């Protein structure tokens, strides 16, 4: 069957080459369609619902907004769980759907439910769904800045409010419609607002209230359409404009008429441009800026979108006033280009090395080129598959591809063909005819195709356990497994079709089949060693077994890391300050932080987001910020080979000296993804559910003590939910009753005075700005002035005890706030977290030097015994331990099954359990070299090292397979056992060396890499290089010895393989 395919390929060799050309075309076309990003997207399927609740404290937000929304969302199809947080001014409900749910379906469901719940929310509250984006979404950021010398038309310098206005009304509209952009989110500066700030004393004097001002504004700012009239065949639209056009128009709005004198807004209030009460700010190199973040739609091509955005931004710059510029500060294109660079470097270097090695060992440049051609072809095949399968190109999926391993099959075929060509020429004593050559090609290929296909199949099978991973690990590693399997399949198909066809077409003429000196020299050294190994086979095998045991012990002493940290090139430092830190204070603290960071020679620029942006997709309080540290290209560093970890340590050290903040260090994509997943990242988490926040905090503290006392617990932490200072104005009902007031009167006045009330909009062409009525800033900020705030009294009966009828009008119509309310400050809840519709707090811990399972068991027992939960409260256990345990369980089934499958494949290949076992034994010995290499370089065990081991087992099996098949063939031809082994081993010396050299040399640049993708590639390359050495030794020395020992009775059992 296989031989038929090969013969078909040779007969229709031109067709094959044409098809290959078509593959190239398709592949290149696919490449343009391949979404390329830096890391795989691990975000779950989720919909965020943000509700801005201007002025609401966490308690009110939860009670009035979060709760009804959460309740409405219960029971959605495909729902995994909901979680929510209620903060000052913001309710965020995150609905997480089961993996695989269509995001648009999910959003549709959520939208329907939101429609229903809208009527239950307080007036003016609009729940909105977050952008259709994932953790990979923030692809482009830019700052809007003015030159220090640039002046506006009126001669004043640009303020952050002006810049924000330009961002909102000039830049953003130009970017928002770029294909692939879901959202342009703004943070920093102040949204322009028109502030009407009445002097409370004036209000009192004129017996007006804030409410009067608000209603006067709204009554004076309407445009009305009045239908149309027809006249002389023409149609006239009737319009009654009444909108205010500018600040002067607002000032002249009449509030009341007293004794013939109109009282205008301008008489009692200052009307001016003011600053909004903002929830976030942005800074760059220590000063405030306006920062725009472009969010990419789910599934778009980040490189294309960010390039398009960059071009649009450049165009938008032309429409900005002189001296103002929008500057890109973070551009995913750069990272993506680095990824592409890494991958293409691997590809080119791999191909070059293969050509050189093959040329050196085969002495035939054409053969070398044919083999090398398999690399780009397999690559293009892989890309086609990735585009079809929706796998994005990134450091995980492409960075770890090893082309040396992929061409192994082709190498073996070419080598065998050349050897046979040489033999044939030798026996014929002349050049072969075409027919003869085609025939030899077919039979030579068929001779080794079976073992090499089995080998590739086995390598593919070894990747099965990776497909068993689920959750984040799964999302991270599935693409890697998929691409490797794709590349192997591609190589397999090419070995069957393109390789024989190309050999048939191009390897004509006299084929040099002379053993070159290098191989001959190695062979002369090898022969005595092999003979010795066969004699002392027991000792060799015992030595091998000892080596395996030792390296097994060594493996347990290597550190381990489950998820590798993909280097994105840039750093994010999150300064974390105590809850309640004000935005202004945080900006002040940010200044010294940014100046320190910018002082490093490796740092290109530093910019930060503090608090929450306009679209609250990342709801941070003002006490937390994201400080982006953009690094210069490595070439510009003082020491271009300085590891990033070292730089981070230096940064951390410098930051320690700045008082007032804690820092968490991360990377842009990683940070955003973690925020979105927001699962508990600690090993063990105890979640306490209940009603009363204080009780939850108390129980949490108890559980924290219990947790800390258990052996192996580290980093025990209780979630911080309190600590936000609240200024509470409690209406005094008794006092209010004396004045005939309701608490509502106090609430309304305080809300308008401090928070402000939107009385309408001021339109300037397309731009619209809110008109806000509130107290002057100097009074708002002063708690003492708050106490003097006048609360309007109701109209009363004429006062019988008035001093004099004449001055009766002078009796106060207001009462100061201090008389009717108590004002005090005390800490309140910082944020309220809920999960699945119930308040909860979380206590977390990591587990060190102890088995997770027993830890959790002990924890559960101790909590049950020592913590008394009030009725209506319950605990739940979560954390990554769940995932680890389930992953371990799954692997415990999948790994043995995989091993059985491999053994089954080997058994199919040989029809002999004994031979299958011999080949199989190659795996552990191959692994020893990898373990030793890891230990020597101090690299911990990781999945990516694991992938290296997997690849290694493949090589070992492949070589073993080919060699054993060859020996069996010799024995079938009637050679005695010892001769067959000796000749077989020596005959396979060249291909074994070749595959080993190709695979290991191809990895040398990767092993030494410190740039993009190095964290995935370095362990993998290290394992493979180390393993190849041991694997080659095994194949050449231990395998023959083992074969000799197992076949000591001297005859072959079972059916021959061919």
């Amino acid at each position, binding site marked *: 069957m296989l031989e038929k395919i090969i013969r078909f390929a040779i007969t229709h060799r031109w067709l094959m080459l044409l098809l290959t050309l078509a593959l190239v075309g398709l592949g290149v076309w696919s490449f343009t369609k391949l979404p390329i990003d830096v890391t795989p997207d691990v975000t779950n399927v989720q919909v965020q619902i943000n509700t801005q609740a201007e002025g609401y404290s966490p308690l009110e937000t939860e009670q009035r907004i979060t709760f009804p929304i959460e309740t409405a969302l219960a029971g959605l199809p495909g729902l995994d769980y909901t979680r929510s947080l209620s903060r000052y001014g913001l309710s965020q409900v995150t609905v997480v759907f089961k993996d695989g749910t269509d995001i648009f379906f999910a959003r549709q469901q959520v939208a329907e439910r939101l429609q229903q719940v809208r009527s239950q929310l307080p007036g003016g509250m609009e729940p909105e769904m977050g952008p259709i984006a994932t953790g990979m979404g923030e692809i482009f950021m830019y700052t809007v800045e003015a030159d220090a010398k640039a002046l506006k038309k009126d001669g004043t310098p640009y303020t952050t409010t002006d810049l924000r206005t330009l961002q909102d009304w000039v830049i953003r509209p130009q970017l928002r419609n770029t294909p692939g952009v879901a959202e342009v989110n703004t943070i920093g500066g102040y949204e322009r607002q028109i502030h009407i700030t009445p002097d409370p004393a004036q209000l009192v004097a004129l017996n007006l209230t804030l409410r009067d001002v608000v209603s006067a504004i709204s009554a004076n700012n309407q445009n009305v359409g009045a239908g149309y009239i027809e006249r002389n065949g023409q149609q006239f639209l009737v319009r009654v404009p009444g909108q205010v056009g500018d600040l002067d128009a607002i000032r002249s709005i009449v509030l009341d008429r007293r004794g013939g004198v109109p009282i205008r807004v301008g008489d009692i209030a200052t009307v001016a441009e003011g600053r909004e009460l903002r929830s976030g700010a942005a800074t760059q190199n220590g000063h405030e800026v306006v920062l725009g973040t472009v969010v990419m739609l789910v599934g778009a091509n980040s490189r294309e979108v960010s390039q398009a955005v960059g071009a649009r931004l450049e165009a938008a710059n032309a429409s900005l006033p002189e001296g103002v510029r929008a500057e890109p500060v973070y551009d995913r294109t750069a990272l993506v280009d680095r990824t592409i660079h890494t991958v293409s470097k691997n590809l080119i270097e791999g191909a070059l090395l293969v050509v050189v090695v093959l040329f050196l060992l085969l002495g035939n440049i054409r053969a070398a080129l044919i083999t090398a051609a398999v690399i780009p072809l397999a690559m293009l095949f892989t890309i086609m598959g990735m585009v079809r399968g929706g796998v994005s190109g990134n450091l995980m999926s492409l960075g770890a591809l090893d082309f040396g391993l992929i061409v192994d099959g082709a190498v073996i075929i070419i080598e065998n063909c050349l050897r046979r060509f040489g033999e044939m020429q030798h026996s014929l004593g002349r050049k072969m005819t075409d027919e003869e050559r085609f025939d030899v090609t077919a039979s030579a290929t068929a001779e080794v195709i079976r073992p090499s296909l089995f080998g590739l199949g086995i390598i593919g099978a070894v990747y099965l356990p990776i497909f068993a991973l689920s959750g984040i690990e799964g999302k991270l590693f599935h693409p890697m497994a998929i691409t490797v399997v794709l590349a192997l399949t591609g190589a397999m198909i090419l070995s069957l079709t393109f390789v024989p066809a190309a050999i048939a077409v191009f390897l004509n003429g006299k084929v040099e089949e002379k053993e070159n000196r290098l191989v001959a020299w190695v062979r002369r050294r090898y022969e005595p060693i092999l003979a010795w190994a066969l004699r002392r086979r027991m000792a060799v095998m015992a030595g091998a077994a000892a080596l395996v045991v030792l390296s097994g012990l060594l493996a347990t002493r290597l550190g381990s890391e489950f*998820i590798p940290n993909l280097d994105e090139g840039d750093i994010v430092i999150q300064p974390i300050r105590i809850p309640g830190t004000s935005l202004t204070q945080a900006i002040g603290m940010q200044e010294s932080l940014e100046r320190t960071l910018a002082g490093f020679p490796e740092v290109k620029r530093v910019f930060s987001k503090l608090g929450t942006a306009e679209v609250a997709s990342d709801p941070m309080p003002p006490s937390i910020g994201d400080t982006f540290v953009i690094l210069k290209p490595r070439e510009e560093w003082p020491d271009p080979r300085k590891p990033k970890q070292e730089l981070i340590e230096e940064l951390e050290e410098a930051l320690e000296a700045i008082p007032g903040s804690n820092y968490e260090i991360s990377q842009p994509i990683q940070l955003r993804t973690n925020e979105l997943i927001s699962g508990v990242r600690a090993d063990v988490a105890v979640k306490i559910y209940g009603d009363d926040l204080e009780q939850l905090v108390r129980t949490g503290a108890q559980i924290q003590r219990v947790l800390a006392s258990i052996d192996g617990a580290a980093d025990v932490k209780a979630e911080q939910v309190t600590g936000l200072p609240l200024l509470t104005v409690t209406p005094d009902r008794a006092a209010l009753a004396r004045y005939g007031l309701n608490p509502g009167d106090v609430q309304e006045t305080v809300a308008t005075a401090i928070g402000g009330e939107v009385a309408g909009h001021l339109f300037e062409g397309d731009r619209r700005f809110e008109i806000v009525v509130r107290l002057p800033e100097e009074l708002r900020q002063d708690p003492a002035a708050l106490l003097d705030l006048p609360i309007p009294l109701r109209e009363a009966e004429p006062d019988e005890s008035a001093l004099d009828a004449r001055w009766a009008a002078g009796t106060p119509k207001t009462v100061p706030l201090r008389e009717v309310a108590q004002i005090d400050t005390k800490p309140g809840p910082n944020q309220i977290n809920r999960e699945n519709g119930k308040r909860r707090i979380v206590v977390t811990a990591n587990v060190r030097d102890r088995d997770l399972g027993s830890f959790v068991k002990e924890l559960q027992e101790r909590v049950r015994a020592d913590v008394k939960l009030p009725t209506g409260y319950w605990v739940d256990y979560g954390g990554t331990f769940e995932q680890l345990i389930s992953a371990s369980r799954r692997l415990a089934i999948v790994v043995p099954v995989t091993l059985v499958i491999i053994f089954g494949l080997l058994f199919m290949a040989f029809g002999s359990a004994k031979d299958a076992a011999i080949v*199989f034994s190659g795996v552990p010995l191959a692994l020893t070299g990898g373990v030793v290499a890891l230990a020597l370089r101090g690299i911990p065990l990781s999945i990516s090292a694991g992938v290296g081991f997997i690849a290694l087992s493949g090589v070992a099996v492949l070589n073993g397979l080919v060699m054993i098949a060859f020996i069996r063939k010799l024995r079938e031809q009637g050679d005695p056992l010892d001769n067959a082994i000796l000749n077989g081993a020596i005959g396979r010396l060249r291909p074994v060396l070749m595959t080993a050299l190709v695979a290991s040399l191809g990895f040398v640049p990767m092993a030494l890499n410190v740039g993009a993708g190095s964290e995935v590639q370095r362990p993998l390359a290290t394992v493979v290089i180390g393993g190849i050495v041991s694997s080659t030794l095994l194949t050449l020395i231990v395998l023959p010895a083992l074969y000799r020992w197992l076949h000591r009775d001297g005859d072959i059992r079972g059916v021959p393989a061919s």
Partner: protein
Amino acid sequence: MKLHWIAALSLAALLAACNASSPTGGEAGEEGEEGEHGELPTSTKIGTQAAAAAGVRVSPAGPGEISDDHEVQGLLTPVDGAIARVMARFPGLVRALHANVGDQVRAGQPLATIESNLSLTTYTVTAPISGVVLSRDASVGTVAGEGAALYEIANLSDLWVDLHVFGRDAQRLRVGSPVIVTRMSDGVTSETQIERILPSTATASQSTVARARLRNLDGLWRPGSAVKARVIVDQARANLVVPLSALQTSNGEEVVYVQKGETYHRRPVKTGRRDADTVEILAGLKPGEQVVVQQSYLIKADMEKSTAEEH
């Protein structure tokens, strides 16, 4: 045999990789940060330079004055006794009027000539007091009736400020308490004292009038206009005060931060009276200690940062 080896080894490797994993990303900065919730550190060390760069300032605690002042609303009224209503003694025809609204008049200055209905002779009406003409309610040719005012004259060199004080302030205010009166139109202020507190309380607003006398030196204080006033309702000396900017709330108690060299100590204090910018310290602090008066929040932030964590 061999097979088991392989299975065991692969499993061991994979499971080891799973079990002992500690997520490395995102939490790098949390190392060495074991601060237990609820047990705050009581001191922190900040380098002199870093503190100066951050704007931290200290000053010694000492005695000071606490004066609690409130802003109240007031009205200007003419002083009782300094206002005169000029009438015609005998009804009759107004023949001539000699003064207009706003004219300054002296006591005895003729204001109007009236032809009496009784005697049919003219007589002159003169100003009873010196002052300014507030209103002129007659015109030439009309008959001035008995008891009808022709002019209103007031002496505005002194004015009363009627301040509306509420609730407890009415009890605490004393005659002689200082008052700063501000004109709303231009913000000019004038200092004076409470002269008396009227005995009754207005029912609707539950306010009492505290009255002060104001010298109308520039003549721009006009009766009938509303003014703002700050009354000092309580004034006392205290042995130990700190600016309010030094006071922070931490873990439910009020604290100040005391600098000793480069170390800052947390000092829970018991506070007494306070006004808009000063607070009296009753316990917890000794006079002369260097208290952080600017950027005290930064010290608090630094001390408590171990409790700050990601949302």
